[in-house]
């Protein structure tokens, strides 16, 4: 009886991860094929087999593939960042917004877009710097011989309010220039290219490697600081490393895709309902499902109302929130 139960659990984890990779592949295929111009399956395979000419090649190589990859990496980075933060801060409501990433990136991106609109090419860099700066401030405010999780959350709220005030001020003083910023705030992937992939990839790699190295530490931190010290974890150092890693993951994603909320908060929860709180499975599954969610949402958002494109952030909120509530209810009945 007990052995059966164990089988069921590891089987479910295996199924969740396996079907995750399968879904990722399918979503990627649809994301490449769907759009204003439909690209058929044989055309896609021929391009991937090395055909270097024709319209299909240009559409796939210059437009669809980079956009698909950017969406996938952004989803994975955001979801991982949220998952790590929820574990480190021991707070189920933690997401990249809580350490100041979103507000910092938002204010700095807006500053560029409003004050020097001719330099929009600098938006990703500015957003990244803003995110890192805001996180740094939150860090300083919450430092008390190591990071105090509760203080960090409160400091995050305060810093977000302060930076949010800055954004509101910009909107009030430059009402004629905020049009362009609105789409960025909602988050989206229109016109994302290989440059953006290059921006994201180092952090995704860092995040994945860190994940493989630190899942045991995250599991131990879940048991509380004292137990974690007891099993030989340097709690202060580990916490700093993990928060910095998640800040970089989230900052890279936000700087490329704009303010995509929701992914970092909800995906880890959905995956936790499916595989449990063991970070050995939770982290990789979170990354895979984060990628699927954002990639899929972007595909749908740019095709359903073709030629109109809905910002993917809005679309995801409308689709994901009810689904999350459904899972919560289902989990309660079990």
């Amino acid at each position, binding site marked *: 009886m007990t052995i059966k139960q164990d089988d069921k659990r590891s089987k479910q984890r295996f199924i969740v991860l396996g079907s995750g990779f399968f879904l990722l592949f399918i979503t990627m295929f649809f994301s490449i094929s769907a759009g204003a111009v439909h690209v058929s399956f044989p055309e896609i395979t021929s391009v991937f087999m090395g055909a270097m000419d024709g319209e299909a090649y240009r559409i796939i190589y210059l437009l669809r593939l980079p956009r698909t990859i950017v969406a996938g990496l952004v989803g994975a980075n955001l979801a991982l960042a949220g998952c790590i933060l929820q574990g480190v801060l021991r707070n189920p409501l933690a997401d990249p917004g809580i350490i100041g990433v979103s507000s910092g990136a938002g204010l700095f991106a807006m500053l560029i877009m409003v004050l020097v609109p001719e330099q929009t090419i600098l938006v990703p860099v500015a957003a990244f710097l803003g995110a890192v700066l805001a996180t740094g401030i939150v860090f300083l405010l919450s430092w008390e011989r190591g990071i105090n999780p509760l203080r960090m959350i409160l400091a995050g709220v305060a810093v977000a309010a302060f930076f949010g005030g800055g954004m509101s001020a910009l909107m009030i003083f430059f009402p004629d220039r905020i049009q362009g910023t609105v789409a960025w705030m909602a988050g989206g992937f229109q016109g994302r290219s290989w440059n953006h992939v290059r921006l994201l990839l180092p952090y995704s790699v860092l995040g994945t490697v860190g994940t493989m190295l630190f899942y045991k530490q995250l599991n131990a931190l879940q048991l509380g600081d004292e137990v974690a010290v007891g*099993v030989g974890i340097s709690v202060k150092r580990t916490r700093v490393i993990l928060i910095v890693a998640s800040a970089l993951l989230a900052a890279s994603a936000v700087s490329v895709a704009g303010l995509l909320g929701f992914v970092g908060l909800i995906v880890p929860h959905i995956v936790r309902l499916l595989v449990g709180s063991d970070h050995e499975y939770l982290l990789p599954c979170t990354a895979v499902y984060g990628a699927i969610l954002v990639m899929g949402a972007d595909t749908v958002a740019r095709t359903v109302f073709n030629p109109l494109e809905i910002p993917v952030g809005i679309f995801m909120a409308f689709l994901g929130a009810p689904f999350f509530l459904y899972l919560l209810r289902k989990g309660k009945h079990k």
Partner: protein
Amino acid sequence: MTNTSLKMQTVCLKYRDKTVFKDVNLEFLQPEIVSIIGPNGSGKSTILKALSRILTPASGYVYLQNESLQKMPTECVARTISILPQSANAPGDMTVRDLTACGRIPYQTLWGSRTLNDDAAIDEALDITGLTKLQNRLLNTLSGGEKQRAWLSMALAQKPKILLLDEPTTYLDVKHQLELMELIVRLHRECDMTIIMVLHDLNHAARYSTRLIAVKEGIVVADGKVQEVFTVRVLEELYDVQVVVTKIERDGCSYPICLPYTKENY
């Protein structure tokens, strides 16, 4: 064969600016069962935290087998000392075996995963605590007593020589309290383990320990064999109550017991 395992030398302990202990000197042997008793807020748990490096002394040293605890790599310490804090909390969707496996973290390298050695240690810890049959149950389906045993099982998977327990019997009913105390005695006898624990139940402390340490307001009031510390004089001073200390003979064994009462009649 007995020798010194843990030693506190002129240790001063502080929480922020509040000094809890000044110049404490304590020595623990291998093996023994020591209970720390004293009123609320006297600093009992603080001593355990210092012994387990959760709290770094403001001055003075804690030595583990003549090496400074602060200078040893933390995972080395974790292979010798286990601690079970007072209010440990784990995600409810963890299994008993998952929790026990966390005790093997100090034996695993950054890259490595679980080995056969780890599995054997986990099996053994589950067996000692009687949880082999419950090993795949989720923690939120367990009773209080089973949960406490699951935590103990995690601590034992660390294969410690020294086990630190902070009020291990809180929230347990009488039967589970006795079972836990007997398990502790067994670990001491069969595995030569040193167990240092904070206990509120004076009768348990007297019955199962080989030595008692009484602390009050940051001062070690008494430290010695049970019959030296478990006296009317020490207990009355310690808790500020009246006490009757007596012995009960049962099946050829004698158990020291005490009955405290307040000065007012009602």
